[in-house]
């Protein structure tokens, strides 16, 4: 089963690998949830999943389809109210890792999930910040998962929804970026992707690390765990 995988799959695998056993993760739906649940099923079974709907220590048997899935409440160690979640758990600094996505990212890891165009007369009204502004400043480490295109990786955001100061890694469909000297820098490309392709998919002049490496391909075990998770959903 190795040798062929989708962009979503390698993104989930690369993000999952960065989670350690026992880490407490604030998880959104979609790719972050896939990555975190994959980590729990592979190398980090003790990874604690926290969803902003109030479920702490959820151990879903199938991939949840919304952050408020009943499965999360049924398998959680505790279910708390939303005000408690944001005050006692996120703001209090109890979360190690928070995942964020966005429509736009800049070279400092700042994110836009609010509007394309001007705020008052937007070309595209996006859903908005949701939990992101306080996740971005309340967790220890922010992991961003985002497909790499010039429209998403922009020199200047149309709107700054959340700050990039705690962004430790950006996992894309083409490779992995980490901040080096305050600027997101390409540190790994996925198998079959060149640094130039990654630069072309970036709206600013992307720095490439001197020690650029290639992402380790998803293992058979990783892909099997990932696919069984998705099939169960």
């Amino acid at each position, binding site marked *: 089963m190795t040798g062929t995988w989708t962009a979503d799959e390698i993104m989930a695998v690369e993000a999952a690998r960065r989670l350690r056993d026992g880490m407490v993760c604030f998880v959104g*739906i*979609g790719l972050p949830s896939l990555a975190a649940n994959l980590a729990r099923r592979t190398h980090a079974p003790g990874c604690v999943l926290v969803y*902003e*709907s*109030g*479920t702490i220590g959820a151990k879903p048997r199938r991939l949840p*389809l*919304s*952050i*408020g*899935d*009943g499965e*999360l*409440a049924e398998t959680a160690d505790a*279910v708390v*109210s*939303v*005000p408690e*979640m*944001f*005050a006692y758990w*996120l*703001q209090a600094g109890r979360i190690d890792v928070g995942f964020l996505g966005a429509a736009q990212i800049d070279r400092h890891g*700042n994110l836009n999930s*609010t509007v394309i165009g001007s*705020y008052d007369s*937007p*070309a*595209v*009204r*996006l*859903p*908005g*910040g*949701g*939990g*992101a*502004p*306080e996740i971005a*400043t*309340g967790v220890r480490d922010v992991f961003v998962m985002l497909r790499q295109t010039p429209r998403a990786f922009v020199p200047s955001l149309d*709107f*700054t*929804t*959340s*700050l990039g100061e705690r962004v430790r890694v950006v996992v894309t469909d083409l490779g992995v970026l980490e901040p080096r000297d305050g600027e997101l820098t390409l540190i790994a490309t996925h198998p079959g992707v060149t640094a130039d392709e990654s630069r072309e998919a970036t709206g600013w002049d992307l720095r490439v690390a001197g020690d650029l490496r290639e992402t380790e391909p998803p293992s058979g075990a990783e892909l099997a765990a990932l696919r069984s998770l998705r099939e169960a959903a």
Partner: protein
Amino acid sequence: MRDLVHDGDTVALEGFTHLIPHAAGHELIRQGRRDLTLVRMTPDLVYDQLIGMGAARKLVFSWGGNPGVGSLHRLRDAVEHAYPAPLELEEHSHAGMAVAYAAGASDLPFGVLRGYRDGDLPARTRVAPIECPFTGEVLAAVPAHRPDVGIVHAQQADRHGNVQLWGITGVQKEAVLASARSIVTVEEIVDELEPRPGAIVLPAWVVDAVCLAPGGAHPSYAHGYYDRDNGFYRAWDEISRDRDRFATWMRRHVVETADVVEYRASLAEAVPA
């Protein structure tokens, strides 16, 4: 509900991903309410429908998408093209909304959080810096939410009007307690509430009206009663994308149905067609 919600009111229909009070939203549409200020962390389909039907003047919110699917097209159309009417936005973060509801439930004029730091959101919302008198740290103050009417959906009420909901309970207690008046729709009315793990109970004396509305959270879910209709959320993307198709759908399934039972029946009929 006709007596408790008036044109121009500020109304909060809450339910965080779970127990979303769709039946109550439909009833507001049937009654032709106008100029509402709609408050809700995640507008979801329930506000997409109200906005698309022209019931809203203003939206107070923190995340306005179709969860797991994409955009709320009626919300976007209102913001991007002022269709069917302009929509004023008051935009928060989830944390800010939660603190604002909790402050309202506590009858405090404001709540405090470490948030709204830099970025462009603070300039677009109602937030003010506030300094800790002991440490000098500057935090964010948000004004309390004090809706005219808070509306939630719950699993059960007893014959006295005490309400119990369980599963993911979100910000519902705060939404009810922060509001001047409150309405609860329920899946069923029971003789006696059996205490449940993780439940919250709203005593009858903080609730103004309880309405029986079985299935009233659809397409959201009611823990222990029915699951989320994920297919409907996906289908809504197509239904709501086009103005006319949306209007036709709303007419058939909401405006021309009398209540939640007829609404559910109209959907069941539509599926084979």
